[in-house]
């Protein structure tokens, strides 16, 4: 109950806080710059900015590095102890692309597919991590991108129903 209310409040705050920012960032309707290096993330679906003929937004590592960096320290279910993650806020990425949907479908290299409610990214500072404990994530160590929740900051995230949203080897995001 408290959990739900808190999420609702956070979502409401985020809605008002995010609205002007989304507008200002979506306003330049210009296309995204094209990736110069290997593409590590594709975003498709209900987005207003893209850089490919089929309406997808393609990102290489350098493009992702232009977002404000976000750091997160938390324990996970697949590692021992507490780890420090570096990456960018999922919220920033979605705002930048003018994403307007209800569900974020995350698809991993290992064909893992999960639907995540888009409110998760406003309610929590969920990051798209590219490094763990200062080391860049490789495909073998759940890279190149890993959706990481601030589990240690919110007790309600210590739940198996959130655990499965931690998508590693993330390759593709579809806004639905």
């Amino acid at each position: 109950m408290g959990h739900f209310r808190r999420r609702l409040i956070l979502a409401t705050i985020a809605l008002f806080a995010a609205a002007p920012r989304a507008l200002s960032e979506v306003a330049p309707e210009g296309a995204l710059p094209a990736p110069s290096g290997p593409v590590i993330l594709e975003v498709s679906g209900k987005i207003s900015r893209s850089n490919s003929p089929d309406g997808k937004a393609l990102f290489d590592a350098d493009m992702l590095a232009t977002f404000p960096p976000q750091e997160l320290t938390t324990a996970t279910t697949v590692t021992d102890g507490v780890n420090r993650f570096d990456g960018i806020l999922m919220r920033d990425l979605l705002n930048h692309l003018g994403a307007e949907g209800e569900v974020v479908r995350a698809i991993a290299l290992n064909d893992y597919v999960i639907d995540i409610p888009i409110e998760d990214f406003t309610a929590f500072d969920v990051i798209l991590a590219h490094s763990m404990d200062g080391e860049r994530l490789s495909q073998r160590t759940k890279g190149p991108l890993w959706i990481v929740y601030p589990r240690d900051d919110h007790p309600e995230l210590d739940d198996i129903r959130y655990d499965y949203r931690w998508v590693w080897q993330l390759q593709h995001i579809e806004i639905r």
Partner: protein
Amino acid sequence: MSTIPKLTLALLLPAAAVFGFAVLTGVSMIRLNQVQSEMRISSTQNMLWVSSRAHVAHLRLSETLLALAMQQSSPEVLEQRLQTYLAAMHLLTDGPQARRMQELGFGAELVAIQAGVAQLEAMVRRALLGDDAAIAQARALLTQYETFLRSSDNRAMTAAWDEMGGKLDLARDQLQRVWMLMLGALLAGLVLIAALVLTSRKARTQADALERERQATEIYRNFAGIISHQFLTPLSITDSTLQRLARQGLTQEEGAFQARIRTARDAVARLVRLVERSLDVARLDAGQIKARGIQTDLAQLARDVAQREAMPDDILDWQLPKDLPPAYCDAGLTDIILSNLYANALRYRFEGGRITISAAAEPRQLRLSLSNPGAISATDAPRIFERYYRAETAKHSNGTGLGLFIARRLAELQGGTLRLSQTEGRVTFTLSLPRAAPEMQDD
């Protein structure tokens, strides 16, 4: 039973109940808290999922190797499959998941896989360079792990189910205990409530006793006031009259002499009446006056008393029905009530006001009303039947403040009531007495 054990019991029982209630509730909360903390699916219970992902990655790598040998797949796909496989194995053989696998009894297999993974990667790399022999080697190595992955799927699943079942058992057990504890707490609560009810009842009895005592004190205090005023006034009148008589001796004329004597005798009579009334009240209080009910013609009694008390005929309006059924009352006591009411009406009616005497029969009782023009103030009305109470307007007259009190007590003694009502400048006292039963009327 002495008072000390009684008191101890009265204190100990609620204290024990409160203690019991607190302890039982506290323990229940602790148990519930335990259940709450157990109500979480631990991360290592995702082993079935981790194991099956590894299994899938394993099968797809194996399948892609075969396809590559038959030129039906590309090196890019194989590279992708290899990475996925390595990631899945990494997950399985590292951190919490590796410990869980050891718990499930796969320690040896994990060591073998960790050693073999590098070997496998090298074989696949060679295969990517077109070494067909490496494909066969890699597939042979993968087949070795096949059995492990299949049984690890099974064991992870059964372990997860066992663990979940165990947790449910534990939770059920705890909840059952909490249920018992709550029952205990409920009992303790009931004991506490019972103790409180008993105590409050006792307190009420004591409060009642205290109130009676307070009333008694009040009566005596008023009595002292009455004595000083009502009793002393006739005595001082008598005394001063006698003094004057003594001073003037037999020199005065006959008429004045007689008047003085009458004044003195009136005062004495008043004193006698006051003493009699006080004695009546004392007997009432002591419960010495008993009502002996007989069939009584209330209308006749009302007329008789009026006549005896020498009520002036010209101020009485009789409105008594001819067929008024008999009452069941003590004629002597009712006589006293009526004489009090007549005296009261005569004394307090407005100048020249007429007194109406009416009666009516009701199913179970008879009502006799005396009504006269007059008024009783709102402050006086509720207290007019109190012992020694004198209305503001009555302070100047020589009443005792006992007449209406006695009248009401006597009415109640006979199972009746005496009530005051006021309408449009008229004051009405209504005496209700039980009706005689029909079979008695036949006597």
